[in-house]
């Protein structure tokens, strides 16, 4: 259960990183997810170093083939739904990454 107020506070933080580019510094493929991510398993999570500095983690989406996921590949931060929350709760939008 995530408070809608918390989701609201996160928005400006998310907005600040949307569209930022960086490289993959590490990655993994999750086969046993926490319960709010069941529906998208298995999925890739990448650790990204932004060109402007700083690191961030997020799922990697929209790659054509699994062997494209490698340390060193460039990525961009995009807006997607993140957690699968209750049907009657606020939708959690957040950051994920796409290969560029």
């Amino acid at each position: 259960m995530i408070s809608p107020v918390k989701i609201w506070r996160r928005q400006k933080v998310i907005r600040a990183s949307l569209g930022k580019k960086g490289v993959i510094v590490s990655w993994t493929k999750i086969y046993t997810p926490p319960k709010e991510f069941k529906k998208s398993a298995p999925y890739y999570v990448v650790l990204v170093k932004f060109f402007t500095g700083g690191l961030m983690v997020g799922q990697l989406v929209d790659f054509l083939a699994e062997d494209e996921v490698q340390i060193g590949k460039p990525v961009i931060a995009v807006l997607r739904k993140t957690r699968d929350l209750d049907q009657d709760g606020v939708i959690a939008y957040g950051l994920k990454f796409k290969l560029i």
Partner: protein
Amino acid sequence: MVEIIGYHTTRFGEWWEESLFSLINQTYTGILKQTQLDKKQIDAVFFSNMLAGVLENNLHLTAKLAELLGNNIPIFRIESACASGGVAFFLAFNYLKANPNKTVLVIGAEKMTDFSPEQTTTALISAASGEEQEAGLSFPGLYAMLAQVYLQKYQATEEDLAYVAYKNHYHGSLNDKAHFQKKVSLSNILNSAYIAYPLKVFDCAPISDGACALLLTNKKNTYQLPAVRVLASEVATDTISLTKRQRLDEIKATKIAAEKAFRAALLSRKDIQLAEVHDCFTIAEILALEDLGFWPKGQGGKKARELSTLIGRGEFVVNTSGGLKAGGHPVGATGIKQLGEIYLQLTHQAQKRQLKKISYGLAHNVGGSGGTAVVTILGV
């Protein structure tokens, strides 16, 4: 001078018939019986547990313990994710340094199997940052990312990691309190399913129930019990998020705590015969042995393959208890168990896994992905 004068543990594993508090009761009555102490002789209790709040909506555990113990002494609950046990011990140790003529109990306990693996995975990730949770990471996922960096940077392989699991399961087969007591072959390990690439089932510590307790005292010549001296106990912290760490190929908190502990104990690495290190995942043991200063940075893969820390091979053995891997990882109990194992070894009570020569032992307990580290050195 603070000494450990007693240790009791339940077996770690799946305890369907037992609740968190019945497990605590088991180890509490067990240690009193073993040491022949009366509960009136206990001056304070330090209790380590991570998940009772998240999983069972049970907090104020100290009052619950008071109900169990039936007295009105001070009781403290400590939570530092998987380092809860080590930190509880550190605080008990310092309490005794500050309060003369006391005997305290340190209890660690966890009940994890009442819930589905998914619910437990979700509860455990509370020890990671909000961003890491939002990215859908699990603890295997976090350590998997550390493993990827390590494997790439130092040209180590998944197979190197497997040797860690092989060794710890071998040790587990010698420990009647371990969760898993069967030896496992390298091919079993390498063929097991992925949990979070490149970590497989056998690279990950299991979900276990368990409870254990240590008796500590600063009283001199009071008890006729096998005693072990606490030579040092140090805690260090680091950022909760991997994204804020200085380096991704080490756990800095371990390095700092280890430096402080060896300096306080006036010992060097080669003085240690047994280390119980935090192998929540195989990669964690490799990082631990490098960060603690036993192995040179980057050599871990090679050294793991040599199996030099397997019992009977050399003068420095790691995780005779089976580690977290085979011993089991009831989170709040782990840090206590590590110290208990060293206590048993130093007092020659380790039975089938007894080391012939041992004067000093080191316990290494980590919280989360390295946000907390505790290093404790014990000696006879």
